[in-house]
């Protein structure tokens, strides 16, 4: 079986599938260990209760659902909250070492919208620790890895996915995999936007491939802005400033030195949920109280140089090196940056199975857990919990099916499409087209949205789709990034269209989706998710009711049908559960 993507979710899935006896190949666009997971800084959310014994899975579950504005898949949120502690401990058996409490247990730090101190971390390089541990495990298990291979097409036999096709980036050779099951773990699509914390890889390939093959894309309009990205100089604009800065005590001020989060969310202050903090910064800038380069100041000087260098070493280094700012002496300048796609392929909570037989998804590429807004730290636990589940379920599935037959025609069609930019007559430059798309999405479907700007953006996306067919790239197939970008762009355009269409239809403000023309929540829209699906090559939308919570979980939210994050009533304290082993 085939795992597409070697970030946290893909590697965890591969490990589980291999352990279950499946023969696994992992395919990744970059070198092994470079996936975007390394960029995760703050930590991994798991209700271990090491620092706050009151913490347990029910509280984590409630925080996740409330953060996601109740349009999450409750079952995913439940599994996630129940299983993340075990996944954290398991990661340590692969060789990871989290920061520790004085008595030798895993240390936890506070983070936005988490009720208790919950994020297990390694300084501010938690993602690196996680990816290295998983990578080592992959090597230990002898799992086959195909580095620098991009897959562009899922191969189907009837309804079923039976393999995938793409090219090797090194020499441009085409490559087809025949496999009983395919797991999509290709992450998100931050590259759709101009100001992003994502690497070049975040072009939504896997989800777009799934979409092309007929899978459903859930909640595409939900794109998370991280409140704190770097602002200046221009070359680093968008690079992430970890939430751990605020977790460790950093606070935000506007140009006048006023700590505006005290008013926006007096209870959680800087550690409110990401959508709220991002909007607060945006509003300060709009009101003319922004800093020199259009952001807010983030200050950690009061922590003292020693603590900053110990707890936030890569932030210290990043600002010193790239912005000439010594954060032990000066405040950082920050502004919202595109960070995460809550949307993705619609999957079954327990198994990660998409709506197509043989196709699974996990991690950022899958949707449902985070609803309208993801809490910091929930993505890393998402990768492990649902990576493992998708790996196990697909390994079980592939035991009972045979290898499918590859339809040569599908390969021939895709080959033609891939070769077009090299042999076609077009004149469009793939990089400049990509930049146009990023600008259009930034302006039209960014943090603050309204009908008019969204419709303009949709027109631009559709126009770019036409022009993308006329891309021309010089050179050969050998390691040609221009050629790679040409194909990536098609994926990006598919996803962009889904985002914009859903964003137009969600005529309300909810979580990350902020409509200036519909500032309130609409209870009716709070009961549905939008789904984009492929209708003969066109992006169509439909709605699906949000799955209904069973009474024993619904009771946790009894006091707040639609809880405003800032003024939620105290959560009912459930009894401390027994440790869950699954």
């Amino acid at each position, binding site marked *: 079986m085939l795992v597409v993507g070697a970030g946290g979710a893909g590697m965890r899935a591969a490990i589980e599938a291999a352990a279950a006896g499946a023969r696994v190949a992992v395919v990744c666009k*970059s070198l092994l260990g470079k996936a975007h997971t390394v960029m995760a800084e703050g930590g991994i959310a798991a209700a271990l209760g090491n620092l706050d014994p009151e913490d347990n899975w029910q509280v984590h579950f409630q925080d996740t659902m409330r953060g996601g504005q109740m349009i999450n898949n409750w079952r995913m949120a439940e599994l996630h909250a129940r299983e993340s502690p075990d996944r954290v401990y398991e990661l340590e058996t692969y*060789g990871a070492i989290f920061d520790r409490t004085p008595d030798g247990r895993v240390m936890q730090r506070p983070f936005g919208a988490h009720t208790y101190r919950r994020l297990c971390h390694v300084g501010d390089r938690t993602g690196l620790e996680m990816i290295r541990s998983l990578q080592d495990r992959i090597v230990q298990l*002898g799992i086959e890895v195909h580095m620098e291979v991009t897959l562009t097409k899922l191969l189907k036999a009837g309804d079923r996915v039976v393999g995938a096709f793409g090219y090797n980036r090194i020499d441009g050779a085409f490559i087809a995999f025949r496999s009983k099951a395919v797991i999509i773990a290709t992450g998100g699509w931050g590259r759709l936007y101009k100001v992003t914390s994502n690497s070049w890889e975040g072009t939504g390939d896997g989800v777009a491939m799934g979409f092309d093959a007929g899978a459903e894309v859930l909640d595409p309009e939900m794109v998370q802005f991280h409140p704190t990205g770097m602002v200046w100089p221009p070359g680093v604009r968008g690079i992430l400033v970890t939430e751990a800065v605020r977790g460790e005590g950093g606070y935000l001020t506007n140009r006048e030195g006023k700590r505006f989060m005290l008013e926006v969310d007096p209870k959680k202050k800087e550690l409110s949920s990401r959508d709220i903090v991002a909007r607060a910064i945006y509003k300060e800038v709009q009101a003319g109280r922004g800093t020199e380069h259009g952001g807010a100041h983030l200050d950690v000087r009061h922590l003292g140089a020693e603590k900053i260098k110990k707890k936030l070493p890569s932030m210290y280094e990043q600002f010193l090196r790239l912005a000439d700012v010594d954060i032990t002496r000066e405040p950082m300048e920050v502004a919202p940056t595109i960070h995460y796609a809550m949307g993705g392929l619609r999957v079954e909570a327990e198994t990660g199975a998409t709506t197509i037989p043989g196709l699974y998804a996990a991690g950022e590429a899958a949707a449902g857990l985070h609803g309208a807004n993801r809490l910091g730290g929930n993505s890393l636990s998402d990768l492990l919990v649902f990576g493992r589940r998708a790996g196990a379920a697909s390994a079980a599935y592939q035991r009972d099916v045979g290898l499918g037959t590859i339809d040569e025609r599908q390969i021939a069609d895709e080959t033609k499409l891939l070769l077009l930019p090299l042999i076609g007559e077009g004149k469009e430059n793939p990089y400049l087209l990509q930049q146009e798309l990023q600008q259009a999405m930034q302006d039209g479907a960014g943090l603050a949205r309204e009908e008019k700007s969204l419709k303009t953006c949709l027109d631009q996306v559709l126009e770019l789709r036409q022009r993308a067919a006329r891309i021309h790239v010089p050179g050969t197939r050998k390691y040609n990034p221009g050629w790679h970008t040409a194909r990536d762009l098609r994926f990006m355009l598919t996803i962009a269209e889904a985002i914009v269409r859903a964003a137009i239809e969600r005529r309300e403000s909810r979580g990350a989706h902020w409509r200036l023309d519909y500032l309130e929540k609409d209870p009716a829209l709070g009961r549905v998710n939008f789904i984009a699906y492929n209708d003969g090559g066109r992006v169509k939308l439909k709605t699906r009711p949000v799955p209904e919570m069973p009474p024993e979980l619904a009771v946790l939210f009894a006091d707040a049908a639609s809880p405003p994050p800032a003024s939620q009533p105290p959560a009912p304290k459930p009894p401390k559960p027994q440790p869950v082993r699954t």
Partner: protein
Amino acid sequence: MSTNSPSPIVLQVFRGETDGGREQRFEVPSMEGMVVLDAVHYIQAHFANDLACRWNCKAAKCGSCSAEINGRPRLMCKTRVDEFGDQEIHVGPMRAFPLIKDLVTDVSWNYEVNKEIPGFTAAPDEPVPYRMLPEDTERVYEYRKCIECFLCQDVCHVLRNHDDKSAYYGPRYMVRIAALEMHPLDAQKRTGLLHGKAGIGMCNITKCCQEVCPEHIKITDNAIIPLKERTATEVYDPLARIARKINPFSGAAATTDLPEARQSQSVGPQRFSVKDVVRLKTRGRRMARVGSVLPDGKLEVWVLHMNGKVQHWDGPKVVRVSDVTNNYGPLDDVGIGSKLFEQTLTEHKH
């Protein structure tokens, strides 16, 4: 990109493939705070769509955009163009690795080396969740900061000038082994590997690697030297020497830190030598020792069968390299090979 600065940046970027190449001159508009990778991206978008370079995070966290900038191994995303003033900036690929195209090199050798290092192994009865005290984990964090940019491998003169990648794993993997060896709960020994295949004796402490490390890991001071000490204690302990004398499989182990000895033992990129202990993937995952390495890269092995307490070495059998798992290093009296071997014998005694 804005062009508010009067004088453009001049870059000389290496262009070429396996059959050679040369530098090409580009002028890129200057921008405040610009790094070399920004300039390369500008060139890609405007002048050379097919210019090959690796990059991912653009924030010095992934270690993909390694290159040689004015002759010095560095990350392109972390190198500001303004530090060069009016000078031309020469950007070329890492020279210790075979060129693929332009700035992209074939670093796959590193991944192969990594496979030879036995991973983290806790004692089987270690209770989970693990308890580890902060003072015991402190030193490991430094090694685990490594982002695998391979700049240390690029600058290492053993790997670079002598082009002898069969004699030494290189600084990156000394750091990796250090991380494993100093892990408070790791129960595996790697000193045999270190003084054998990993070739720690090849390092003569010039500290070039730690000078180029973008994560400021003190590779030589904090990883290689402590490992050298650990290896020396365990390998050159007088009692161990006596034991080696009576060991039927002892060979050149005691002299392996001499470069001549290492090089005569090395047998090309696959890194198997006579007397290495390996485990077969097939046939019940039996242990075997390498009898010889055939010219086509296959191994002639003798497979261990236990007949009660008596060992039988069946063979020779010819196997492919892909049929064996980790090479545990030479079967001497201190290495991992011998540890595994003893373990197997003990298991059969019960």
